[in-house]
């Protein structure tokens, strides 16, 4: 009995903090979302009115659409690129360690500082590196992080309603940043996965006369499917959570064309003081992410 008490004592510090700063605020956010004007004199319970308001105003769906554009624009390219690089690195190339170190560097770098650098690279006139390079081949200048028009509109000249013009160039700039920052992390994850495939599998395939392309598509890609699934889930979760790079790179667009769900919640609170609406949006965000996280935990379980 005494030992059991001691075990509970060991759990106490973590339990206290997790309860106070994770579980309690979660219950609070659900609670607050059911009130109108929460925190003011004339607060009253409204049931799901805040949810109705958000869903009807269309702003929530607009943010959801932006989040989806962001996810669609960053995930496939990062996953394909990093898988190709991990496969090349598996060949025990000279300088492999050096490349791995360099690829991983953006991932550990502060998002605020790195986003400031990319903002400078994407500067609106020819002083910016990106514009000066593009202008040397006769393109641009582009307004990059300040451009609210969608990229399809910029390409084809037609504006389409309901985000049909594609993600704004401002959002695309943030997306390029995100690909840059997560690429190396994905390479390491894929390298670890590839390391688990035994040499015999490849040797047998080579003996059967399969070329490098065939081996890649018939052996490597299917075996990497669980890792691709895992990366798809964590990167779609982070598409919803992205904040720092939008805040720093596209301050002018963060209330408009670069306003993903987290930015929507934060701005409802900061700019409009609407704690009730922000909370309802946060609960909706939770529901979306809970589904994605459940999928992620499924991947962990499969691995165990």
């Amino acid at each position: 009995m005494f030992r059991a008490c001691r075990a509970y004592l060991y759990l106490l510090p973590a339990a206290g903090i997790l309860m106070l700063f994770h579980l309690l605020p979660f219950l609070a956010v659900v609670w607050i979302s059911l009130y109108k004007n929460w925190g003011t004199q004339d607060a009253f319970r409204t049931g799901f009115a805040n949810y109705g308001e958000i869903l009807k105003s269309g702003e929530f769906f607009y943010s959801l659409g932006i989040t989806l554009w962001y996810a669609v624009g960053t995930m496939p390219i990062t996953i394909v690129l990093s898988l190709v690089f991990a496969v090349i690195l598996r060949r025990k190339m000279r300088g492999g360690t050096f490349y791995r170190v360099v690829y991983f560097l953006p991932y550990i770098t502060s998002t605020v500082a790195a986003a400031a650098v990319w903002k400078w690279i994407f500067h609106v006139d020819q002083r910016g590196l990106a514009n000066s390079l593009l202008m040397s081949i006769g393109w641009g200048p582009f307004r990059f992080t300040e451009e609210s028009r969608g990229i399809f509109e910029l390409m084809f000249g037609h504006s389409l309603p309901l985000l049909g013009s594609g993600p704004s160039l401002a959002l695309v700039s943030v997306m390029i940043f995100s690909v840059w920052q997560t690429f190396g992390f994905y390479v390491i994850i894929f390298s670890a996965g590839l390391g688990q495939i035994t040499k015999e599998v490849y040797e047998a395939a080579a003996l059967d006369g399969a070329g490098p392309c065939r081996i890649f598509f018939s052996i490597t890609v299917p075996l990497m499917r669980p890792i691709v699934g895992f990366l798809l889930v964590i990167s779609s979760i982070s598409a919803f959570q992205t904040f720092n790079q939008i805040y720093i790179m596209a301050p002018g667009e963060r209330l408009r064309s670069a306003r993903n769900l987290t930015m929507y919640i934060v701005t409802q609170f900061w700019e409009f003081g609407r704690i009730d609406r922000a909370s309802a949006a946060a609960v909706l965000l939770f529901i979306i992410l809970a589904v994605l996280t459940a999928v992620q935990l499924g991947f962990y379980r499969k691995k165990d």
Partner: protein
Amino acid sequence: MKIRKGMFNLFLHLVLLAGAVFCALPFFWMISTSLKTSPEVNLTVPQFLPQKAQWSNYPQAIFRAATIGVPFIRCFANSALVALAVTLGVLLTSVLTAYAFGMMKFPAKNILFLLFLTPMMIPFEVTLIPNFIIIQKLGWYDSYLALVIPWTANVFSIYFLRRIFERMDRELYDAARVDGCGDFRFLWSVAVPMAKPALVTIGLYTFLGSWNAFLWPLMVTKSPQLSVIQKGLASFIQEAGTDYQLLMAAATLTILPVVLIYLAAQRWFQEGAEKMF
């Protein structure tokens, strides 16, 4: 055949090199800009390297930050202090919790463990606003406590460490207990040293995460004296205007400690990332 293979290898090297250029270019451009003069920064055709490295941009950036109310060195010290405190806190709470779940026997263990995992389902962005209100109610708004305490327990570290403690030699544990070695002593003199690689990884990632954190400090602190480095840099970005050489100097200083830690311990970082899946 041999030539074809050589060509193929060369091609692969070029691909790897292109990737390295993509990853490293922003760092190069940041440092290069930080060493330029103001006219050089404003050239319509950017030069890759400055004529002469302007090291004075660095003290000037710190000075300039001070004039807009950002005590840069103080911010640096704040970040180091907060990150260290958070790291120590996470290591302490995770070791205790993971040890209890991994090694000890007590009633309701499995249910409690599931309860401990529930915060994994609750992302920080969802609870951001009520958390802010809790901090206010505790009277911690604009204090070091607000920056440190909420982050001193981490579910992933507990989960990760528990797996390691579970796989530890039970016979050693039983023998130690027969010899009269208590749980607490066994924990510190046997279990912790054995889990050292995992602890280093958790410690490094926690420190990194805390050093790079931005949204939370932005929410819960307002006075410049309590500003962490990311928040200080963000204010500098907003108010320094177009003096990009100073901005890039400040960004370089912000990134530098983490890059140095990373280069010294890169093996641990990469192994840690591998263990995430």
